[in-house]
């Protein structure tokens, strides 16, 4: 028994995967098969003594698909996936464009004619010779028909001019029916541009399921063939080319929107690998050799210069430095490290030259483990079930049976033996049950929602995030870089020994100019903000892991930690009260001294991002549970949480554990969102129901997250959730509008209402007659309508109109403005 995961090419709809599973699972020796259309993969377990992989391949080939066997090399590279998606979107776009090109003249002409009751011109030269319209009556219909006529007249003028060179337009030598033009325009839409609907229907029928495509094919074919045969052979009054053309165009538009809303495959994994160092300097026989990192072995001695990335995990054997581990651990401050301390691959060596012994290489490294966790979390995410497809499973057979009942009722009972009457009513039913508005309901709302979100700097990588965000119960925030700025800022500057604060600050900032250390940077920034020009420093010296030393304005200035002060022989004992107080606030403290006398105590901390507090308050008002997860120490975490009003804090969480924390929250039955920025957050972002990456974060986080906040403003989390709610409401409204048309119009097309409005066939019911006699014009209109059935062309028009109303309703979503934004 072997189990393989293989790639399958050529599947074009969800039914294809069902078809494959159905056929292959019947074969002897096949234990199980599960094919996924979305992932283009199949997982097959079979007994190779009974059936060979070649035979399975052959069977799948017969169905029209291509199984990529292992020897054919079926690796899925992210580039390939991306290219595939781009191709699909391109194809959908091309189809929409082509359909619009062919269909728009028909749609516009017929829609205007029906909406405003414009005189319908059927002959080409009659159209060319249209008179400039005059306003006949006022009101909606009057102005509408005037404008529509004007449009037609404007289109006719250039035609008239050009044709005038060739023939006498006023007395044309021949006549040509405009329906020929419509026929020529709608045929390629029906059979070439919309071919996928037929293809998918065939597949669907083969597997015995019914998706929306079946109804689309059925309804539009009914409309098309009725129009074509009726026009060519039976002089019917009203071929309705526009309904098949319009319906198909709208559905193609819906499919295109769906493709766009599906979102792009995550490039996270590729980005993650980019992070690591590509090469390492290995010490071999006292010589330094630069090798690619995949050649490193456990035990290799590796040298890392300041500013370089640590290539793999290991233990320092020589040297002293500060290492920025923020990318992996989320710790905001660089850590001082010396011989015996562990280093992590992909972190950055800031100052000193170090040598370390590799302890983990290749797939053992922390970075690689994070990559794997991201991969796993993404693969395990359940795809959202398509609501519309579920409905159609039942809707399709119901419609088909209903249309046959309608045919039988008219042909055998109502007007026995009258085929024309029965056919027209059946066709009207089929046309109006075409579910095109339903196919548009979800994707159009999602696309508009995604577009609206983008206006606020919220990038949604697919409709799924928008569909789920409103359900969120808990939101987990990473601390460093998400809630806080992610780099230290000077929070307190305490001058000592009677020195002016300004002077002390300028001395400290000046001496720190030479240092690359983030703490030093923050002091320089503070100094520069106060004085544009800092005094010059001479004899500058940085001592790794301790501090800096230099001569400013003739004074011997040192800035550094307590150990550095001790080694310089500066007494700092008296300062312990101040320092303790600052350290209790989870601040990092350094000392400054001039000419061996302390001049200042400087406290630094990672500070909150602007609007972070506001965003948290707003989310709490929305009854969301807020959790802070951080790799930082509990004191710092608590201090920040207190400031923000967050009650639940999980500190010292290792990067590997972050995804676990999210998982356990999910096990509590909650829908969890994770907001983060670092590589260390990536597995958690992928694991969460919704990963939200903040824009200041790393590329990996932004690739992993389904939502990216470009502006780095946490209030956008609130906006995103609200917008999601609004979008969901729109989707339900759309489905309602799409459905109500079908539910109301199908019985009217069938003539079922006659059972209420007539006592016997051809005899109006008394109440209808009473209405006609007592309510003047409106009564007469109602009487006339009640005695007629919905004609196929009006059914088609109603369907097209329902699509328009759904699209319009979706577009209304553009008016959404987040409440927070309104406040300014």
């Amino acid at each position, binding site marked *: 028994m072997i189990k393989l995961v293989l790639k399958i090419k050529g599947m074009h709809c969800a039914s294809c995967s069902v078809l494959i599973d159905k056929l292959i699972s019947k074969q002897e020796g096949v234990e199980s098969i599960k094919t996924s259309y979305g992932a283009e993969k199949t997982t097959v377990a079979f007994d190779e003594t009974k059936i060979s992989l070649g035979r399975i391949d052959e069977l799948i080939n017969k169905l029209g698909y291509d199984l990529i066997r292992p020897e054919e090399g079926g690796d899925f590279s992210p580039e390939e996936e991306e290219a595939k998606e781009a191709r699909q979107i391109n194809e959908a776009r091309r189809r929409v464009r082509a359909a619009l090109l062919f269909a728009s003249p028909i749609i516009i002409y017929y829609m205007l004619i029906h909406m405003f009751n414009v*005189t319908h011109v059927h002959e080409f030269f009659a159209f060319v010779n249209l008179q400039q319209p005059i306003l006949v009556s006022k009101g909606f219909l009057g102005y509408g028909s005037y404008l529509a006529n004007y449009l037609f007249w404007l289109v006719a003028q250039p035609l008239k001019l050009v044709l005038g060179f060739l023939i006498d337009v006023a007395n044309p030598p021949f006549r040509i029916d405009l329906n020929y033009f419509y026929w020529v325009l709608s045929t390629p839409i029906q059979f070439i541009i919309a071919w996928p609907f037929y293809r998918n229907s065939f597949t669907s029928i083969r597997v015995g399921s019914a998706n929306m495509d079946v109804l689309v094919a059925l309804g539009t074919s009914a409309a098309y063939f009725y129009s074509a045969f009726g026009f060519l052979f039976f002089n019917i009054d009203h071929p309705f080319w526009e309904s098949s053309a319009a319906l198909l165009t709208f559905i193609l538009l819906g499919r295109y929107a769906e493709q766009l809303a599906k979102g792009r495959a995550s490039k996270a994994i590729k980005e993650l690998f980019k992070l690591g160092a590509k090469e390492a300097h290995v010490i071999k026989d006292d010589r330094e050799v630069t090798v690619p990192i995949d050649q490193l072995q456990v035990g290799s001695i590796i040298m890392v210069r300041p500013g370089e990335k640590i290539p793999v995990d290991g233990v320092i054997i020589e040297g002293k430095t500060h290492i920025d581990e923020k990318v992996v651990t989320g710790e905001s401050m660089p850590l001082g490290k010396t011989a015996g301390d562990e280093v992590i691959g992909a972190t950055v060596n800031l100052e000193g030259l170090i040598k370390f012994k590799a302890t983990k290489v290749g797939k053992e490294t922390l970075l690689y483990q994070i990559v794997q966790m991201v991969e796993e979390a993404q693969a395990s995410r359940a795809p959202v079930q398509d609501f519309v497809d579920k409905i159609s499973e039942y809707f399709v057979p119901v419609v088909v049976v209903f249309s046959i009942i309608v045919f039988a009722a008219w042909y055998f009972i109502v007007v026995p033996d009258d085929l024309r009457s029965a056919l027209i009513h059946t066709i009207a039913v089929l046309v109006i049950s075409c579910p095109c508005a339903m196919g548009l309901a979800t994707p159009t709302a999602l696309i508009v929602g995604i577009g609206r979100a983008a206006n606020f700097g919220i990038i949604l990588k697919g409709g799924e995030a928008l569909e789920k965000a409103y359900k969120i119960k808990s939101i987990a925030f990473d601390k460093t870089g998400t809630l806080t700025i992610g780099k230290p800022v000077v929070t307190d500057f305490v001058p000592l020994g009677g020195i002016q604060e300004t002077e002390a600050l300028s001395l400290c900032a000046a001496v720190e100019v030479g240092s690359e250390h983030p703490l030093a940077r923050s002091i320089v920034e503070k100094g520069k903000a106060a004085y544009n020009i800092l005094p010059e420093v001479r004899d500058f010296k940085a001592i790794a892991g301790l501090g800096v030393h230099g001569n400013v304005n003739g004074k011997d200035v040192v800035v550094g930690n307590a150990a550095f002060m001790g080694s310089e022989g500066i007494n700092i004992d008296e300062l312990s009260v101040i320092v303790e107080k600052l350290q209790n606030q989870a601040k990092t403290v350094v000392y400054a001294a001039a000419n061996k006398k302390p001049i200042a105590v400087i406290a630094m901390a990672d500070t909150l991002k602007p609007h972070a507090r506001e965003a948290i308050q707003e989310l709490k008002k929305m009854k969301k549970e807020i959790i802070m997860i951080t790799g930082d120490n509990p004191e710092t975490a608590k201090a920040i949480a207190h400031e923000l009003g967050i009650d639940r804090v999980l500190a010292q969480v290792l990067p590997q554990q972050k995804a676990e924390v999210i998982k356990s929250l999910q096990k509590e039955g909650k829908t969890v969102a994770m907001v983060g920025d670092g590589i260390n957050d990536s597995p958690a972002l992928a694991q969460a129901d919704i990963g939200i990456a903040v824009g200041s974060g790393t590329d990996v986080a932004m690739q992993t997250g389904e939502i990216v906040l470009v502006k780095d403003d946490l209030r956008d989390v609130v906006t995103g959730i609200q917008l999601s709610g609004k979008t969901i409401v729109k989707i339900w409204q759309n489905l309602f509008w799409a459905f109500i048309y079908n539910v109301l119009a199908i019985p009217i097309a069938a003539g079922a209402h006659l059972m209420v409005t007539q006592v016997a066939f051809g005899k109006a019911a008394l109440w209808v007659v009473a209405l006609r006699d007592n309510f003047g014009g409106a009564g007469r209109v109602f009487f006339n309508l009640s005695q007629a059935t919905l004609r196929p062309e009006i059914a088609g028009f109603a369907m097209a109109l329902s699509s328009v109303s759904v699209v319009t309703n979706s577009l209304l979503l553009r008016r959404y403005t987040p409440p927070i934004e309104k406040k300014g």
Partner: protein
Amino acid sequence: MNKYIILIAVIVLIVIAGALYRAYLLPEAAKPVATGVERQITISAKKNQWRFEPEVIEVDRGDKIILTMVNEDDYDHGIAIDAYGISQRMPANSTIKVEFIATQAGDFPFFCSVPCGEGIVDGAKRTHFDMIGKLHVKDLISETQ
């Protein structure tokens, strides 16, 4: 079982049931009647009046009706009678013939089925929607019984 097999079975059942009903259960009064009488009727769409002339036509049940539809306008009209599945175009300035057997008794609207605009006729506004008339089919059988 394949859903489509069930579906086809259901469809066949419906059609058979309908055919059986038609053959054995359909009340005598509802059965289509043909008298063999041919009746010629001319209906005109009057020029720029958005009106059929005559607006009421009376026939006997079972008659074969041959409608001569005259369109006096420079634009198209249509003639539709839902109950008998009539749906024909009346091209501008021309005459068409429409044939059917009035197998069922009752009042059936006949109306213009091609949007044909609107205008002022004798001071009143008339439109495409006013082009509606009534086909009255008298039931000879029930009246003689």
